[in-house]
């Protein structure tokens, strides 16, 4: 009960932020009735999905300050668990998604234990390596469809048990619900004991250790929370796209995108991943559909995208939220 109160309590934010959250929530609620096309709806679903990924990454990467670049493997685990259980045994989504979360958590403990012996660059590259190993295995494992991937059976009628709907609106509300669960959880998390411990670890590991914090255990716990978040998103991806393959769920670029959105928005802040996703997802999609399709201009959309990453990391590593806070300080 106490935890729930903490999760719903946004009173330590400034008035502007709380009003912003309310306006944003109202916008999310009425969005399907604004008469926008299906393209806008897919962009919004992507945005909510990547905010969820980003929030997960924010626990270990933002509050914990560990450069984690292997989140895609958990997207893969979540997506494959849901897809394979459905294809093999016809198990409903509501059972296979929690199963995916449990597998992701178990796996994250198993590799987190050796992984968190490492620090800094060693850690960052090792996370990439584990993710690539898993992708290589799935790419060549004929039992799980190898590089061809898995197609989910399509049901004729909309089905709540298997989460198959004709209209994107249902998926939109479902991912929105997941998004709010994530947001409230993160709101609790940042005020929890683990949240404070992680920030302490980020500031000064030696000092944290001398205060009796078990650094490695804290990091592993945060890492598995992050993995659970990402696995939920992966499960959603499976039922939403109805088709998954290693290239779309476990690619290195996906891991980077997840971390990048959280960092670009502002790591270690509740709003950061949301702002980052709100900025990058539409940019990505619009650049892709506007420039990517034109002949002779292939690649220019990603050049702009990359240039943006370069500029942000060189001039404002604290992200968009960092810029906003800078302005607020100046205004005071």
């Amino acid at each position: 009960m106490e935890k729930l109160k903490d999760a719903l309590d946004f009173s330590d934010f400034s008035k502007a932020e709380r009003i912003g959250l309310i306006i944003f929530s109202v916008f999310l609620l009425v969005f399907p009735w604004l008469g926008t096309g299906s393209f806008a709806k897919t962009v919004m679903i992507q945005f909510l999905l990547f905010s969820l990924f980003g929030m997960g990454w924010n626990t270990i990467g933002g509050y914990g300050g560990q450069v984690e670049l292997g989140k895609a493997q958990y997207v893969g685990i979540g997506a494959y668990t849901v897809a394979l259980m459905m294809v093999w045994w016809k198990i409903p989504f509501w059972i296979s998604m929690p199963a995916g979360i449990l597998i992701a958590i178990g796996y994250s403990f198993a590799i987190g234990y050796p992984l968190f012996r490492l620090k800094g660059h060693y850690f960052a590259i090792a996370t990439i390596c584990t993710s690539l190993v898993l992708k290589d295995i799935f790419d060549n494992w004929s039992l799980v469809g190898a590089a061809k991937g898995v197609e989910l059976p399509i049901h004729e009628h909309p089905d709540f048990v298997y989460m198959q709907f004709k209209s994107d609106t249902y998926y939109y509300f479902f991912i929105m619900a997941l998004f709010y669960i994530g947001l409230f959880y993160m709101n609790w998390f940042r005020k929890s004991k683990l949240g404070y411990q992680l920030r302490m670890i980020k500031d000064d590991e030696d000092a944290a250790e001398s205060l009796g914090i078990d650094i490695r255990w804290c990091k592993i716990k945060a890492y598995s929370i992050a993995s659970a978040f990402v696995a939920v998103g992966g499960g959603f991806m499976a039922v939403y796209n109805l088709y998954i393959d290693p290239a779309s769920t476990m690619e290195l670029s996906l891991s980077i995108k997840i971390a990048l959105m959280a960092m670009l928005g502002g790591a270690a802040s509740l709003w950061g991943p949301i702002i980052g996703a709100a900025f990058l997802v539409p940019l990505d999609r619009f650049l892709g559909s506007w420039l990517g399709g034109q002949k002779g201009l292939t690649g220019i959309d990603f050049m702009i995208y990359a240039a943006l990453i370069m500029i942000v990391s060189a001039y404002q590593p604290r992200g968009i939220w960092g810029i906003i806070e800078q302005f607020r300080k100046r205004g005071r």
Partner: protein
Amino acid sequence: MLITDALLQGILMGLLFALVSLGLTVIFGVMDIVNFAHGEFLMIGMYSVYWTNFFFHVDPLIALPVSAVVGVLLGLASYYWFIKYLLRGPAIAQLFGTFGLMLFLQYFAMFLFSADYRMINKGILVGKSLSVGPFIFDWTKLAAGILSLMAFAIVYYLLHRTKTGKALRATALNKEAASYMGIRTDRMNAIAWAIGGGTVGVAGGLLVNFYYAYPMVGILFVMIAFACVALGGFGSIKGVFFAGLLVGVLEMIFPVFGQLIGSDFLGPHFKFTVVYLAYFIIVVVRPQGLFGWKN
């Protein structure tokens, strides 16, 4: 027999891997930055030789200095126009910054040259092979191995015998102390990037003789280079040489073992998986690498 052959081929590849990783380890040693764009420097080295060959009909081996010059210029340009500004930020921003550079160069290459796979098909050595007893070597790979070894030796000599090289290593050991001795950190950083770009450019020029050039070729080689650098110990030049050889032999010999046992699961698809696993295990068991001195 099969194994000896794989061993020899692996050593040739390993020499090239060592040259690819050399720049990465020098840059890491001097300024503690992991350069994700390193593979893209390799890609641009490959393209520079390819286009020199294509337009001027210069033999790829003679065009090698072009790739070296392009590599050095690219390294210097990246440092002065971009990396310098990254240094003010936290480590995570540096990682993302070089990652952004990587993406930028990849898609820039795609924009300019399209995503086509390109390979050199005429040259003195292309397509010819040398048979020594039962073993057959491609001349291109042989030349790549020998020239990589030479390039590595030259850089090693420069770093250990010249004054600038010594200054560079001093900066790697202790930046502050070196700067008190009058060594300009900024210039050393630039030199490290020039060496990094130049060596990997040459490696690209050698690689294009027997490997396709395409915009995304870098990511595979940068992962191999990461593995070599970590195996050798971040920043260790001697270490990266032996690690390169080890990785080259590993990726060649592994499919042969699979072939001998008759197992499909040890097939050639997994040859790089082994490299990643080796990285993971070595780094966890022995974080300073095989020859590491920087922890």
